[in-house]
């Protein structure tokens, strides 16, 4: 993990309250694996002391450009949304442990994303596609206004969009679509709100898969024990989301 200062090279509003930022991270991008995050200092001086963990949505190794996508949900992301092209960002990267796709043997992958859990799955889908894995994505959003990256996922394989209110695509939750639509896959990879991850892990409990979870973090390096999650093996054990995760095997940890 490194601490560096990067300059924002593009800023786009890609859906309601959803912003995509890109920056050059020369020399750091080769270390990034899908599912990892960057830990961003969104304040100055003693305001907003806690960094904000934001997942990495895409990496372009040739141009050394990193893309992040975040939704404005609180003080930190609001602050981050006020940055402009040319502004500097003080970041730690890459943080956490990503999807271990190099250790998996698979031909077909199912991507299941919900809301702001969709971004890290894009870089994952891209890497899987590059390895020759057939990718089917099921991505869910609150409503039509919040949908993003549908066309980018379509470039990599099948993509089903789901909205809670049915204002775009399939109406319901991602798990409803999975019930409704038979999809062949060897592994599933999921990221989204805890409620969705619980539903997905329960529904697919007999399948191999990985989930990525989020939690309020302190240090982001594994030292402060703020973002722990209990393990599911009955040993009273725990994992640190920022260091051991945010990606875990489905059912490895207890979702709370």
């Amino acid at each position, binding site marked *: *993990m490194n*601490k560096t200062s990067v300059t924002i090279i593009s800023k786009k509003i890609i859906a309601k309250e959803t912003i995509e930022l890109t920056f050059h991270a020369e020399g750091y991008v080769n270390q990034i694996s899908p599912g990892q995050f960057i830990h961003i*200092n969104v304040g100055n001086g*003693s*305001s*907003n*002391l*806690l*960094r904000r963990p934001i997942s990495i949505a895409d990496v372009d190794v040739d141009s050394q450009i990193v893309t992040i996508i975040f939704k404005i949900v609180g*003080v*930190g992301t609001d602050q981050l949304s006020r940055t402009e092209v040319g502004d500097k960002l003080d970041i*730690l990267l890459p943080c956490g442990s990503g999807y271990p796709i190099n250790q998996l043997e698979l031909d077909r992958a199912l991507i299941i994303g919900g809301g702001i859990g969709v971004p890290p799955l894009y870089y994952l889908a891209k890497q899987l596609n590059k390895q020759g894995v057939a990718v089917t994505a099921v991505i869910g959003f609150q409503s039509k206004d919040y949908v993003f990256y549908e066309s980018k996922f379509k470039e990599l394989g099948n993509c089903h969009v789901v909205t809670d209110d049915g204002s775009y695509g399939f109406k319901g939750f991602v798990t409803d679509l999975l019930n409704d639509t038979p999809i062949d896959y060897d592994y599933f990879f999921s990221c989204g709100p805890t409620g969705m991850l619980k539903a997905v892990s329960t529904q697919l409990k007999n399948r191999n898969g990985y989930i990525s979870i989020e*939690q*309020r*973090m*302190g*240090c*982001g*390096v*594994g*030292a*402060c*024990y*703020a*973002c*722990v*999650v*209990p393990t599911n093996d009955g040993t*009273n054990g*725990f994992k640190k989301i920022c*260091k051991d995760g945010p990606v875990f095997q489905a059912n490895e940890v207890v979702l*709370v």
Partner: protein
Amino acid sequence: MTLLTRIPGLTLKNPIMPASGCFGFGREYSELFDLNKLGAIIIKAATLESRYGNQTPRVAETSSGMLNAIGLQNPGVEAIIDNEVSFLANYDLPIIANVAGSTVEEYVAVTKAFTRTANIDAIELNISCPNVKEGGIQFGTDPTLAAEVTASVKQASKVPVYVKLSPNVSNITTMARAVESAGADGLSMINTLTGMQINLNSRRPLLANKTGGLSGPAIKPVAIRMIYEVRQQTSIPIIGMGGIMTAEDVLEFLLAGANAVAVGTANFHNPFVCPEIIEALPEVLAKYGFSSVEQAVGKGHEYGHKDLSRT
């Protein structure tokens, strides 16, 4: 310019150490910088048995600070000695072990376990964790109980004992004098101030534990005031802490009467803050007319009224 700092049991290359609970057992930060740069390390609190701690969320941001309610999560003193102290023993780094407990017997047992190893240089007696129901805070707010646990731990310990004081009391000097009389070799102050944040959407306290300990620059003036008061009424050394972010902050603590300092919340903001402060400190000391750390200690007391008025 010398940063050398001598306090009971500890000869420090410089007066900067990470505060307990804000640096784990050093392992993660050792991947980021050479721990030998630090003056010392205060490791995360140990209890006799392993503890899982509180439910999440365990942290919340506040204006110029943060709340935490981790709940003394730790693998228990024996596991810490076997897996963590042994790792830190590879460094040229004094180790201060933070001892927590819910009874005098537990404090004594944890202290004995630590002092059986040759690698612990001092004990920080944690009678001030606000985040667990049975976590010793009663010892930190009652001078009689504080003196009792200090005397027992002091008797059990082969190394100097620094008592970590809680700011959640109406008179900090009473607490400081009580533990000094009971044999404390030094003080460590301040721990966090109890606070709460309520989420507007959920209408519930944001932390799962409801209350948490406030830390960061928000509490620095409280720490400075308490150290200043205690310095006037006790003669044992003080490790000062509470919102230190910069080398200038360190000097302010020294002037108030701290002999060394610990850096806590700032590590989360910038994982490299300790080595950065150590590097900046000589210039800051020189700028304000000091040629050593020891020269600056207590120099904030030379002007103005001798005693603080008490409200």
